[in-house]
């Protein structure tokens, strides 16, 4: 059984809500039924077969080809199965996914992996603001799972992060780890201003020295036993994080944000 493949015919002018095209919704549906699903695009509804050429039949393995930055909500609430996006993805990629994995070969927009519960999200390119964050007004962002970004991430990475791991091979923008209540964010590249702003708990793991606010206090240099285990957990990833050469267990530890609870930590490679 080959992967159920949606190949975009033409790029619509308006953004498209792709949330109906997830594995658990399509399970057991005939090709004609899938073709007849209507997707919201601006104020119009478009049939799936108006937008895409459809091939394959394995609803648990979905491929979206010729994807571009206006396809929003790809993999929303996914609960098992896998989605491969060839090209860019729009906003709210993998929002609230419960299990399964989503891979994007290009860039992703705002709020990728927001309020994710479990599962795996991999973005080969760059991603927008609020990666793994909470929707506006909500108090809990990502609650579990793993996000890997091979490029750069925008501002507010892991805003209100509750649990789970975010790995960024490139740079992260301002307010990385803002308001996080727990979880782990690792950034190999540079980080922007206001790192860990109002973070309560959780870990920010950095390869390069950050510009820290005065509300973070230096706790000294330490060798931490959990770090080798953390890196070991990344060993199976298709990522630079899996490379044992980038691993370390000696860190400078900063506690903060002291303007908040102050139980969070920034660990910087020594």
């Amino acid at each position, binding site marked *: 059984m080959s992967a159920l493949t949606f190949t975009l015919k033409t790029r619509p002018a308006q953004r498209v809500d792709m949330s109906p095209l997830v594995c658990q919704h399509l399970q057991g549906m005939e090709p004609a039924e899938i073709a007849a699903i209507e997707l919201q695009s601006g104020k119009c509804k478009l049939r799936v077969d108006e937008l895409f050429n459809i091939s394959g039949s394995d609803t648990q393995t979905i491929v979206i080809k010729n994807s571009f930055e206006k396809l929003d909500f790809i993999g929303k609430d996914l609960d098992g199965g896998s989605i491969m996006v060839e090209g860019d993805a729009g906003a709210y990629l993998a929002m609230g996914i419960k299990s399964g994995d989503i891979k994007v070969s290009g860039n992703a927009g705002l709020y990728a992996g927001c309020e994710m519960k479990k599962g795996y999200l991999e973005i080969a390119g760059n991603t927008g603001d609020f990666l793994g964050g909470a929707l506006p007004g909500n108090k809990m962002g990502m609650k579990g799972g793993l996000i890997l970004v091979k490029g750069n991430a925008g501002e507010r990475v892991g805003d209100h992060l509750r649990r789970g791991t975010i790995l960024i091979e490139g740079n992260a923008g301002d307010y990385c780890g803002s308001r996080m209540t727990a979880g782990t964010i690792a950034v190999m590249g540079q980080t922007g201003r206001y790192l860990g702003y109002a973070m309560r*708990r959780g870990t920010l793991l950095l390869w390069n020295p950050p510009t820290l606010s005065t509300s973070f206090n230096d706790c000294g240099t330490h060798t931490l*036993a959990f770090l080798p285990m953390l890196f070991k957990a990344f060993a199976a990833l298709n990522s630079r994080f899996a490379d044992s050469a980038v691993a370390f267990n000696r860190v400078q530890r900063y506690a903060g944000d002291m303007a908040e609870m102050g*139980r969070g930590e920034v660990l910087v490679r020594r």
Partner: protein
Amino acid sequence: MIINGVTIDATFAEAFPMKATRAIITAQNEKWAIISAQAMTGFATSVIACGCEAGIERVLSPDETPDGRPGVSIMIFAMGGKGLAKQLETRAGQCVLTSPTSALFAGIDSDIKIPLGKNLRYFGDGFQIAKVLAGKRYWRIPVMDGEFLTEATTGQVNAVGGGNFLVLAESQPQALAACEAAIEEMRKIPNVIMPFPGGVVRSGSKVGSKYKALNASTNDAFCPTLKGATKSDLSPEIESVMEIVIDGLTKEDIDKAMRVGIQAVCNLGAANGIKRISAGNYGGKLGPFHFHLQEIMA
């Protein structure tokens, strides 16, 4: 049955269902992992008065441990799950948390989980940090030598406790030498512990006592100095009896351990003063697991 001049009695050891768990203790080096493990499994020879039976299963190389440091695998057995959880937690808190450079991990997987570091985390007084790594939850507890890393839970499994055999010899040194040889071989068998000091017990007990307050007392039938004073099981040439008690995860594990242990004793044979192998039981009425010596050695 006679092996190398040693008589194998037509009797059986009687064992009981228990609950068991396994934990892995690691440290900066093997020396400190062993020290911590010895502390954790100390005063745990018999459930009669210790609350549990515990022992070191084996020493682990760095590539066998979760954090890549030298380690020791320990096992704890108790009569019930509640008692097991309590013993595990108090021992982990007093003996491993306190031990320099130590870390503590689950050593067995099961649907039934019991707390390992789950409650020890409160020692961190709010500074403790949880981390979920590869699907398992760990706690980082700040302590004076750095951080104590512990897995939150470990597994609890059904197990068997009280497998045993008795070594009857012409002298005390000969009985001890035979038991030492047996223990050396039995320690190579996985999933078992021999909880008594050095694996050997010289004060085997029977159920009951003339004193109402005691529910166990010396096994007078196997005490060589009482040969003429009680209904003895010993022939005139027997001057010393020692026992090896085995707890294991399954009956098969205990079978294997008993086989290699008895074989090691028999290898010394009658020429080294070993006369008989026997076993302790309660007439088969109390424990559902029976280890027939002659079947095991067949």
